[in-house]
């Protein structure tokens, strides 16, 4: 029997995203030179939601992109199954911009390192920040998030499952 605990329900996710949008705007002092880049797949959906929230608040549309980091992984040969390749879409110039990377869960930090590697192949941003829905600890690299939806201490064997309506039919974050 899986012991499941709901870390965030639908409302919890919504509130966290609204708060993060405000925080991003506060630090960036507005939307000029701001861009959000989501890490596929769920990070990309979260980035889209953040862009909508920001538009509600500021009335301005922020540039958005999505990264597929599969080709930048450092553990390609260790994965048990073929990573499915999605497409990276960065249709604007990232140079001199403030890029906020968006992902669902921050764990070891390796995914973010891949995203950083890929991002700098596209240009030279002014600064890169990180927004995550859940930070579950156990970093293996010196990486930290600038914006966090919820900090959740976890054991290594546990799993954090994020479900989003766009992909999974409902919104919730579970500890398994």
């Amino acid at each position, binding site marked *: 029997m899986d012991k499941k605990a709901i870390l965030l329900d639908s409302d919890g996710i919504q509130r966290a995203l609204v708060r993060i949008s405000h925080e991003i705007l506060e630090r960036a002092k507005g939307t000029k030179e701001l861009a959000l880049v989501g890490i596929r797949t769920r990070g990309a959906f979260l980035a889209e939601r953040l862009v909508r929230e920001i538009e509600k608040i500021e009335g301005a549309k922020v540039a958005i992109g999505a990264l597929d980091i599969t080709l930048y992984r450092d553990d*390609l040969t260790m994965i048990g*199954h073929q990573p499915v390749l999605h497409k990276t879409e960065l249709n604007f110039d990232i140079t001199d911009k403030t890029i906020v990377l968006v992902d669902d869960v921050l764990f070891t930090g390796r995914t973010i390192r891949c995203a950083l590697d890929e991002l700098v192949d596209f240009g030279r941003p002014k600064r890169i920040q990180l927004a995550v829905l859940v930070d579950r600890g156990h970093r293996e690299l010196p990486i930290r998030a600038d914006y966090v939806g919820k900090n959740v201490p976890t054991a290594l064997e546990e799993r954090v499952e994020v479900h989003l309506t766009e992909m999974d039919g409902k919104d919730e974050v579970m500890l398994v």
Partner: protein
Amino acid sequence: MNKWTRKDLLGLEELTREEIEIILDTAASFKEVSARSVKKVPALRGMTIANLFLEPSTRTRISFELAAKRLSADILNIAPSASSISKGETVKDTARNFEAMKVDLMVVRHQSSGTPHLLAKNLSAGVINAGDGAHEHPTQGLLDLFTIREHKKKIDGLKVSIIGDIAFSRVARSNLWGLSKFGAKVTLCGPPTLMPRGVEQLGAKVTHSLEEAIQDADVLYLLRVQLERGSGKGLPSLREYVRLYGIDGERLKKANPDVLIMHPGPVNRGVELTSDVADGKHSVILDQVTNGIAVRMAVLYLLASVRGRNVKTTHS
């Protein structure tokens, strides 16, 4: 979820439709990489790939070379004259020597059909067939499928006519296999002297009439007339070929208005097709070249991940 499990890519005949789709879908992602300003991803960093081209080729070899480099792999080019094969070493021994230098993947082109099979059997490195005799040229078939899919959105039910020296063409065979698996209606057209025996049994319609092949065609695939490869005896002259099978603007009018003109290259202007057709709005010949890099990147990537798993299990 489907995954790619083969150590080698020797031909399209033995692949399932699903396996081909994995390659084509993967290629779509790689096409984007070639469109960036930094055309490189680190996915195959540290892997060594050898181009063993024992039959001369420029474009295919360069295509594989670029594909490997864009994946950050190290690539060696071995030319036939420079290799020890000219000193009498067997192909098998040459390849084994490269394997001893820990080459991970070998791309092989050879004039004898079945050579990649011989190597694949004897090497733990992955083998990619870049063209063996008249047998197959799988990456060409794949990039052609990719190009058709890109322009027509689907392949099922399309009428595809392959025209020219079918008997000696590995490109024709690979395309026949690939297109059949995707439900296209293939017509093979050429003089009887250049039509291989029994090919109707493989599901293709055979005709010696260009008109029949062009009528309502969605894709016209023109093969290079290869007088150097033995089709010489089947054709009295290039002039005869042009008269019977050359494609020009007039003949093209009988095809579907959205017909695609395809060619594996290099093009013989004025022979298989006239310049205006080669450069015209129906021609996707250059798209084929662009897609070739993406498809070869996908093939190298998929075979590299199998190789990586194999290497890891022998070391653990």
